[in-house]
């Protein structure tokens, strides 16, 4: 019986010790996978001004809305060679997420859409299966007008589904990793 009492007493003492745990401050986490910045650089073929479209959201999933900038208007009836840059600028130096996407190119695809028929987009790159990725693409502007340009990145889309490899998102499925809309004008 005495041993039992001793056990109980020991347990009490142990619990008091356990209660006096360390009081260190936790380590800050800067999210590794957050995308803060999406930049599309549109270089016109046969001369003209390079256009840069950028969306930046430095607080990630925080309440601040992304800041969207468009460097200027696009020229009508012109082909632009476009390249996407995806960055995490909460880290320093900024983490280039584009490389990670390209490493897993078969599991990622960008989709582009324009309103008011102001332009169309075509893929100029391929993953290892010969399907489009969309880090590089061409933008062909139509006649003058204004509208919006939306870029969507889908993770694990079904690239074999009807229309997906020509840029139709309707059957793509997967989860959305990025979705940005730029208001642009064509003059």
């Amino acid at each position, binding site marked *: 019986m005495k041993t039992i009492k001793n*056990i*109980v007493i020991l347990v009490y003492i142990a*619990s008091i010790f356990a*209660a006096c*745990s360390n009081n260190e401050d936790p380590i800050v986490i800067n999210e590794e996978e957050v995308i803060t910045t999406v930049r599309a650089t549109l270089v016109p073929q046969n001369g003209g001004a390079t256009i840069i479209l950028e969306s930046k*959201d430095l*607080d990630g999933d925080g309440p601040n809305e992304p800041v969207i900038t468009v460097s200027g208007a696009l020229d009508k009836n012109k082909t632009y060679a476009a390249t996407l840059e995806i960055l995490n600028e909460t880290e320093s130096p900024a983490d280039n997420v584009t490389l990670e996407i390209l490493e897993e190119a078969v599991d990622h695809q960008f989709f582009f859409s324009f309103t008011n028929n102001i332009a169309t987009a075509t893929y100029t790159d391929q993953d290892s299966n010969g399907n489009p990725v969309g880090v590089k693409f061409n933008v062909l502007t139509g006649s003058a007008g204004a509208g919006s340009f939306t870029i*969507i990145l889908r993770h694990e889309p079904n690239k074999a589904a009807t229309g997906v490899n020509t840029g139709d998102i309707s059957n793509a499925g997967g*989860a*959305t990793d990025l979705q940005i809309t730029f208001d642009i004008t064509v003059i």
Partner: protein
Amino acid sequence: MTQKIFLCALFCSLFFSGYAQDCSYTFKGIVTDYHDGTSIFGATIYLKNSDKYTTSDYQGKFEIKNLCKGELQVIFSHISCETKEVLINLTEDTFKDFTLEHHIEDLKEVSITSAASAKNKTAQATVLKTDVIDKYSSQNLGDALKNISGVSSVNTGNTIVKPMINGLHSSRVILMTNGVRLQDQEWGIEHAPNIDINTAEKITVIKGANALEFGGDAIGGVIVLEPNRAILKDSLYGKSILTGQTNGLGFSFHSSISKSTKKGWYVNAKTTLKKYGDFESPNYVLTNTGLNSKAFSVQTGLKKFKSGFNLYYTYLKNEIGILKSSHIGNIEDLVNAINSNKPTVVNDFSYTINAPKQEVTHQLAKADFYKRYKKLGKLKVQYDYQNNQRLEFDIRVGADKDKPAIDLNLSSHAVNTSFEFDSESNQTYKVGFMGAYQNNFADPNTGVRRLIPDYDKYDLGVFTIGNFILNDNTNLDLGFRYDFNYINAKKFYFKSRWSERNYDNEFSNLIIGDFNTQWLVNPEFKYHNFSASLGVSHELNQQNAIFLNYALASRAPNPSELFSDGLHHSAARIELGDLRMTQETSNRASTSYHFNTEKTTLLVELFFNHIRNFMYIEPNGTEQTIRGAFPVWLYKRTTANLFGIDINWQQKITDQINFNNKTSFIRGKDIDNNRDLIDIPAARTQNSFGYTNKKWYQFNANLESEFVFKQNLFPDTNFEVFIPTTNSNVLVDVSSTPNSYHLLNFNTDATFKLSQKTNVTIGITVTNILNTNYREYLNRLRYFADDLGRNYLLQLNFKY
């Protein structure tokens, strides 16, 4: 066997009843089980000095007339109880309440009994016994508890099942297992109780906060799981249950073995293994919904009437797949999911569990010791330690692919002491003290901002409860409790979030560090909680009894209500807690009516629960990120009124055919906003016909119909969002409820003797016989997929 003894005892009592003297005093009493308060039928009551016998009746009552004044030496004995000797000084007609230590009748206990029992004789308590628990051996605690009218569940798929008592769940329901309050991050709606149902031999559900011994914050109720009791004889017994099922193509295996000695030493061990692949709805495979579960427990101790101890350890590891198509990127994906009636990902059946998934390990160790002091009572001291390790894996890319997105470790220590003054049989008191410490650690290696911060939490509680037998037919319970909670957290907030929540003015003193875009803050909160309980039970006559209960309970906000902050990837929503939360207070009044005859058992329970500062979470607009728009789910508070009725009616039609109806209806009102409360279960009714033939290998067959109404009372929390791909504004319908549904289930079993001490029960169960397509309002995956289709189960239950 029991019958024979009863007849013998009856004979004896008849024989001795004619043994009259001049004396005219009457000695009456009631014999109940020491542990659960159930009546003990057929106990022999022997008066040593006058050599008189009688036996307790069906309700545990007995009466011996014509006794002389003076000291009575009374000996109570029963086939499955420890013999007890009591001295009574008889000076007038006397009524007394006696308890016996009832040994396990575990291997042959009968179906659910709805009666006042457990630690509190007046509460709305319902007991599930071994036969029901065994049937659910391959499933969840939450599934088994739905056998109790008024208990439903809130689900994430079909393997994460949280019990809901009268519309309340998570932190509002206390789960006790072998005397230990489970600490397993119960605040989260997608955190299933980390408990293997097979560790319990008996489960009691107490509705409302009328069991203050366990805690003062059980606004919903308390679920008490008790392992098998030691038998005070030299024995070695065990059981093995093997269940196979077609839906999920899986199996469950449970085995237990117990050894006990006459001197009171006992040891038992239990283990359970479960493995399921993808489950199926009637029309498609629910991709990535498999389950792997391993559980182990061991218990040893010494049990004597005067003193004893118990050592207990349990280990449980669950790997749970979450429906693949419920992983969505942003609000447009959610809109697509709601509008499509099929999940976006349907692959071939597989046992592989990929992300999104949960891996949860729970360990519990406890030691307790009790000692009885003659003519005073029983002292109990207990210490327990629990460790809960929760990993949640999301679909991630690159180097983080195999890293969990959530990695929380919760460790808890608790010390409980109580003293029960039970020397006077018509009034017993219990006083107790509880001290607990808890530490939560969120591992930063996840690379994902913490949803729940690091914190230390201290709790202290004192309670006193009393039970008074006012007369032959009336019982009174009274209890008070005070709890002090202190939480000290260290949490990072985005500076933008801190300002958006308007914490700048009120909480600027909490900031202890500046980390570029984030603040490190140190919230410290203290809460004082008072709770009280009052219960009266009154037996009007042999058939009718009424119960009245009142409980005041208060609950401090849990870590997610206070601190949630950020994108919950698995739910594609931004969840925001509120540092301004204060404790919620419930006033619950309830009444029950019992009607009991040989053929009919009817139990009607009514309750009304008024909750001030009721904390709940609901959609509140959207926020734009670079991934697109996300719905914001905000923790809010309001004044809530809940009321409802639960009915359980059992009717014997013939000796072999019986009918059972269980119906529950509940209504929840948000008083401050004059609308309905969110997430209130719909009315449901279960009707079943059973056939039993004991002569034919104890054959049972049961056909059950379960009808769940459409919940028409819900708040409109729909919101509009702009969808760029279609260039349009779309209404996101997150609040509409699914249609009513009707399920048919069938169960049959028979028991065969293999040898003197071994028998096997073979059972076949078919659930959702009609393969009905349905979705349940309280399943969080209802936006994405249908619920389970038809399932055939075959169960072999060996007892030896």
